């Protein structure tokens, strides 16, 4: 009887442990997914360099820290640097190729991603880099499960970022203008909204969001010039899962993917975890092409 109860308690603790693992990873996927959505909303482009923003943010922070900056300053400067890289991508590539079709622009972002990886290994290196955990590594115990302080940072910062973005998009003129551009670009032009500036802000924002993800994940998973590939892919999957362009969808997609991975690794085999995750996405996309939270477009004219 006692043994049975103990076993049940342990299974609950394990379950909680998987939830913690899934939520942490899911929060990072959410940040990447939101980056995808911000640019998609403003430009209809799927920016496949979003994962590279994460890599640039993490790598910049690691090297700024090595150069002697305090962690907080390295993190903030890395976010600013990556936002600038995002703006450069808009000004020097996307804007120039504006006349080309959407497909061409998407291919352009793939090219940009490859370029970013190449440049990163030239100006930095090919090694893995890490940041110290923001507030130590002593894990906290909750109901028999253990949570690393950095996981709390990831989840809380993700929530703060989502809340801040919500305020930005509903309370500020620039944020409203970005939603207007997303809703109807021509009408936005006719209102005198500076669509160019809006797109620039979108890329800067996506860059900053990616960098936040990179700085948060670096103490957990390390970062190197190819870190953006897999995280970008997972973030894209999360965005598609939730319905690209939707913020609640990005959160839902990130959480579903993160928790799905953790539970697969925990209860099934971790060997096919990625394959299973992508299989789920394919099934969801066939069943609900606009994502689990996406609205059907059939009724729209």
């Amino acid at each position: 009887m006692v043994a049975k109860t103990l076993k049940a308690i342990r299974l609950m603790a394990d379950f909680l442990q998987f939830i913690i693992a899934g939520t942490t990873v899911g929060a990072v996927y959410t940040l990447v997914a939101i980056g995808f959505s911000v640019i998609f909303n403003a430009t209809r482009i799927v920016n496949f360099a979003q994962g590279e923003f994460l890599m640039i943010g993490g790598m910049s922070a690691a090297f700024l820290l090595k150069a002697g900056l305090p962690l907080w300053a390295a993190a903030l400067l890395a976010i600013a640097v990556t936002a600038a890289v995002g703006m450069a991508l808009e000004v020097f590539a996307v804007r120039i190729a504006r006349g080309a079709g959407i497909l061409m622009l998407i291919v352009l972002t793939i090219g940009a991603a490859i370029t970013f990886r190449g440049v990163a290994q030239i100006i930095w290196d090919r090694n893995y880099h890490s940041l110290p955990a923001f507030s130590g590594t002593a894990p906290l115990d909750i109901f028999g499960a253990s949570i690393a302080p950095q996981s709390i940072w990831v989840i809380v910062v993700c929530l703060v970022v989502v809340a801040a973005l919500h305020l930005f998009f509903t309370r500020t003129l620039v944020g409203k203008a970005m939603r207007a551009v997303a809703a109807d670009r021509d009408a936005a032009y006719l209102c005198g909204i500076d669509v160019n500036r809006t797109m620039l802000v979108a890329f800067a924002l996506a860059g900053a969001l990616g960098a936040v993800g990179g700085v948060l994940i670096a103490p957990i998973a390390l970062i190197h010039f190819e870190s953006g590939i897999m995280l970008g892919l997972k973030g894209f999957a999360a965005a598609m899962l939730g319905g690209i362009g939707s913020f609640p969808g990005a959160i839902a997609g990130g959480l579903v993917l993160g928790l799905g991975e953790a539970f697969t690794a925990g209860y099934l085999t971790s060997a096919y975890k990625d394959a299973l995750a992508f299989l789920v996405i394919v099934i969801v996309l066939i069943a609900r092409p606009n994502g689990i939270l996406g609205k059907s477009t059939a009724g729209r004219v």
Partner: protein
Amino acid sequence: MIEVEGLTASHGRVTAVREATFEVGAGEVVSLIGANGAGKTTLMRTLSGIHPPAAGRIRFDGKEITRLRPTERVGRGLVQVPEGRRVFGPLSVEDNLILGGATAAPAERRRRMGKAFDLFPVLFERRHAQANSLSGGEQQMLAIARALMAAPRLLLLDEPSLGLAPKIIADIFDLVQALNGRGTAVLLVEQNAVAALRISHRAYVMETGSIIRSGDAAELRNDPSVRAAYLGG
């Protein structure tokens, strides 16, 4: 107010507007009438700067604006209410209006919003509603109010009566006259040529991309060939 000279615009290889030359004077209401696909909407989009011209010149207040960006044209008082209303559906009525005044300073924007709500009390009542949830007539009012937020000196109105009930159409045309009475010039594209000509000073007739006739509104209204082609006999 606006002078257009030899304006040509195309969609790929198809020329939609061919060497259009016309003008709208200060304080005028001018109609552009013509069948579906005559190139009226492309012409309006070119005037606002969201469709690139292939040739020709546009002057506003005597100054060349052919190459100006849309936002700069709005800033000078050349504002369009697009065909199909095109309100920002997911945004609230109030946010739609705020964005209409994107080019103005905050204090001025608030002043204009007060005026817009005076003009359209129904929009004030529904200011927190999503624009999507408004009726067609309300959306048209919102679209016009949004344009008024930019303090237009020349208002481009593209098919304002499309798909609306007759009672509301009448209201809209009354409104256009009222706005004109306060000194706003209007270029009106309408399929409902009878109503358009009734409130216009002058009019141009467009056919397959070219302006084929022009004259006083009253004169065109009584012209047998125009009546036959556009006014339903």
